[in-house]
């Protein structure tokens, strides 16, 4: 199908984008990579009156490792992050997740900010951000604020972003020699949204793990921390962690799979990812 008519404006700067967003009817939408938004417009699932193009706005597409953190601009494209030496070194969890996102042509346009702002419950990057305990920089007409990933994902396609907000960057702690990460997902075909997936981060401490953070995707309305399983895994008990998932997750049936199958897969994912976390880094 073709989209309903809308107006199009290229934002000249971040301030210009914020100014354009502030319409009384709230009918403006930011256009980043367009890899989710254009599809919903073509299907007429949404019909905003104005699209504000962030492509070309300066200052939103940098990747910088500094002060023990990695800051990634919202308009960094998936492909740009895949090729970044800083991401490979300081954000290895994101590097593991990126190849699972759609296909090469999607990753050539899609942005990290767009993926996180869109907050598809089966998307990889929101779960990575949650597993890493990252934070998000948001700019709006009332100024700038920073929100923790734990407080960002509110519900199905619902985040802490208001209708007049622009996500400008995400920030995650830079990986150190103690950092351990793990990632696995089940998808019907390569590049499809996951049926269920798990992004995980921990610190090596002695022979075991501490600060374990497990973020599941595809098993709820948002990415979900499995806190009971985290505690069991920190105690070194993988099968105990799998059992503890019963108290953490309650996946519902969706178009891809039944809730019961997702629940089973969550356990399989945990065993695989636990192994990755426990393997020493070279």
């Amino acid at each position, binding site marked *: 199908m073709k989209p309903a008519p809308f107006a199009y404006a290229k934002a000249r700067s971040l301030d210009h984008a914020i100014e354009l967003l502030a319409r009384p009817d709230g009918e403006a939408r930011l256009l980043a990579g367009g890899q989710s938004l254009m599809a919903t417009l073509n299907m007429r699932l949404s019909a905003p009156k104005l699209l504000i193009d962030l492509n070309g706005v300066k200052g939103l597409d940098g990747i910088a490792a500094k002060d023990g953190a990695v800051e990634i601009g919202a308009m960094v494209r998936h*492909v740009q992050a895949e090729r970044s030496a800083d991401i490979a070194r300081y954000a290895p969890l994101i590097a593991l997740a990126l190849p699972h996102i759609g296909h090469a042509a999607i990753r050539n346009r899609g942005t990290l900010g767009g993926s996180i702002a869109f907050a598809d419950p089966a998307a990889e990057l929101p779960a990575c951000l949650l597993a890493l305990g990252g934070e998000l920089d948001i700019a709006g007409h009332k100024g700038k604020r920073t929100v923790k990933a734990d407080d960002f994902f509110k519900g199905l396609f619902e985040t802490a972003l208001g209708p007049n907000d622009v996500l400008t960057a995400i920030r995650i702690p830079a990986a150190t020699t103690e950092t351990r990460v793990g990632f696995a997902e089940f998808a019907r075909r390569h*590049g499809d949204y996951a049926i269920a997936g798990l992004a995980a981060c921990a610190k090596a401490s002695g022979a075991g793990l501490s600060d374990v953070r497990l973020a599941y995707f595809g098993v709820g309305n948002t990415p979900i921390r499995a806190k009971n399983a985290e505690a069991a895994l920190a105690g070194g008990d993988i099968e105990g962690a799998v059992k503890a998932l019963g108290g953490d997750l309650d996946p519902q049936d969706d178009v891809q799979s039944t809730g019961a199958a997702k629940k089973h897969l969550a356990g399989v994912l945990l065993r695989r990812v636990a192994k990755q976390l426990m393997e020493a880094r070279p």
Partner: protein
Amino acid sequence: MSAPTHQITLTVNGETVSETVEARKTLVDFLREDLFLTGSHVGCEHGVCGACTVRVDGAVVRGCLMLAAQCDGARVETIEGVSDGGEIADLQAAFEKRNALQCGFCTPGMLLTAQELLAGGGVPSREKIREHISGNYCRCTGYQAIVDAIEAVAMARAGGEK
């Protein structure tokens, strides 16, 4: 409301074009309907099938998920330009030789996508080839012959036999 329009100037297959387009017009519709470049096809119109694949500023993208208005100042290349220029003559020949196309609907997108992978150099594994074309649907061939053709060209370009 009267449809908002934009004046755009871009290069398409090396030629400069200036047109007025409706804001909501996708790049692939612009190429097909305004420039009569019908080699890029329209399948699903939501990013899934890859029939609309074109190159914008050197990167392979979905023509149905970009607006023509976004391409002001851009360098757009379609299958017409890329095949006329000879860049993929070997790939086209290999597709024909190995029956890697039947109806041909997916072929322009398949060729551009394969060329992007091959341009990276080396001989990618069959698994890597499959992964790279995973966003391009073919309803005829079953993919095996397409993977064969891409692999053969990769080897030939790397100086091997086959």
